[in-house]
């Protein structure tokens, strides 16, 4: 299994713990990744489509040239790329226009065959859970984990792709918690928005969302949360204390990236997964994991 690896911006910027932990986990699982180093940010839903579609078409064309499917480690990258891909593959005239006006200069042409998958989907659909299970060295007993998907890993429907996998994809994160040996502390907000996109425009609402979801998590007995999206992580972890202060309560809920979570079950130490970089202390999680044999 080989992928054109698209790490996105935040995994090397505001969440620098994500990139190395992803690479380590891929390596451990023998998932070959060839990093795409000369491609742009997806635009993250901030850049308008008339700018982000061309730069994403370029990224997709380059992966197509590499002859590899793409793998992402961020729900937002995944969603934006998948939505752009949907537009480019479902409308041949549109794709032809983008090719002609934006990609041809560089000698590129997107033919519409690239598939983009988040690591979470790769594990279930390409790797196979039955192949993953034997590699679990430390079932994460004692962790009670709430899932937090990130909107773009669940919506809109055409980005999740109208395939037989699309409904199952809405449960992968729930499932993987149990598969890694941890307990699921389900929350109704697991598919909702963390507030990150409006952090700049409306901080109050943004932080209210953080408090709401982490609060629900704690109320349901969780001792940590896992998310496949570093933008969610930035808000849920980075702004958790601020959110708590606004809501008038202490939250103190460690937020884990998906690869860190899986990595620890595979045997990496919390330290090796760079959890010490987080804003909200992960020591409760570290204590539990370090005690497991």
């Amino acid at each position, binding site marked *: 299994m080989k992928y054109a690896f698209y790490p996105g911006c935040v995994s090397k910027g505001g969440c620098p713990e994500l990139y190395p932990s992803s690479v380590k986990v891929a390596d451990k699982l023998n998932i070959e990744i060839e990093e795409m180093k000369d491609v742009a940010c997806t635009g993250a839903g901030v850049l308008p489509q008339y700018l982000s579609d061309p730069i994403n078409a370029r990224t997709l064309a380059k992966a197509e040239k590499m002859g590899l499917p793409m793998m992402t480690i961020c729900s937002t990258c995944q969603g934006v790329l998948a939505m752009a891909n949907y537009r480019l593959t479902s409308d041949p005239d549109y794709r032809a226009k983008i090719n002609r006006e934006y990609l041809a200069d560089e000698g590129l042409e997107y033919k519409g065959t690239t598939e983009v998958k988040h690591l979470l989907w790769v594990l279930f659909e390409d790797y196979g859970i039955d192949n993953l299970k034997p590699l679990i060295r430390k079932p994460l007993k004692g962790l009670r984990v709430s899932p937090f998907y990130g909107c*773009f890993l669940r919506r809109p429907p055409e980005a999740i792709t109208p395939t037989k996998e699309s409904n199952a994809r809405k449960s992968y994160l729930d499932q993987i918690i149990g598969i890694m040996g941890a307990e699921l502390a389900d929350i109704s907000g697991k598919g909702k928005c963390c507030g990150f996109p409006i952090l700049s425009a409306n901080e109050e609402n943004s932080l209210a969302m953080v408090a709401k979801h982490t609060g629900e998590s704690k109320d349901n007995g969780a001792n940590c949360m896992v998310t496949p999206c570093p933008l969610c992580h930035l808000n849920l972890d980075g702004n958790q204390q601020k959110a708590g202060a606004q809501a008038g309560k202490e939250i103190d809920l460690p937020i884990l990236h998906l690869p860190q979570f899986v990595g620890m079950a595979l045997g990496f130490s919390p330290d090796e997964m760079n959890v010490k970089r987080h804003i909200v202390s992960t020591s409760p999680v570290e204590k539990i994991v370090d005690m497991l044999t």
Partner: protein
Amino acid sequence: MQVTFKVYRKDPEKDGKPGRSNYTVDVPDGATVLESLFKIRDEMDSSLAFRCSCLRGHCGDCMVRVNGSSRLTCTAKVSAYTQKGPEISLDPLRNVPVIKDLVFDWDAFMWNKISTVKPWLEADDATANGESIAADAQMKDLRKVMSCYHCGMCDEGCTVLPVDFKFLGPAALTKAYRFVFDPRNQHAKEQLKTVEGPKGIWDCVHCYEADEHCPRGIEPTKRIVALRDEAFRVGINNEKVARHHKSFAASVKESGWLDEGRLAIESEGLTNVSGLMKLLPTAAKALVRGKAPLPYMHAKRPGAEQIKKIIEKGEAENK
């Protein structure tokens, strides 16, 4: 078949406290939830209040939550909800003040918000020269957006409304789209500015819940995104958002990827001392943990030149 409906009750003329009434009714196999409600009201409890109008899925009036999910009662077949057992719960929509039983306040929920966007066309009145000429493709998109029958499902599923009821919401913002993108409309620019104000398009988290909820495939979230993109194109009428977007675009144009440190600072504004001061605690913590992306350490990517060319071309073509 025998079904027990557990219906939310609230009587403003008694104690106004929420409660629930259970009604067990015998309904024909093909019955709808609305027909069951009629049966309950006609035979068991004449005080039960619920709305309906067209009876056939045309008008959006009868929206309630059936077993927690919003549905039109007039097209909701009872048999679809009794797979797991003969009990069905009926509640008003979420995110909305309730007046009596299943009758909620549509004004506060939606009508008032739609009024805020000044929902009408300002166009040339004179009919002497017949109709304005328009390609059907343009009218087709408008027909899609205008097929909205104000059922409220998009607002009901919205992620923002539970934390901020004053947010205009997908229904009102989709209405704004309908006007901003109608070529006959003479006050499109003003309407766009109106929805760029507080509680408008910049408060949307574009989570696509609205698109998942809309029963008519109108894709409200995509319409809001289109308004945002249009605002970007003509110049964003919201200072902080404008700074944020400008910085993001500049980052990607210059280096190929996002410089978050720069973004945080430029969003506040380089001369916005109080805004910048607010960033300090988070920035300090991030620095200590080795998390802070330092602007002057942000390296240009290979391919940055090509990326820049593409963006510049895109900007030029969309002036």
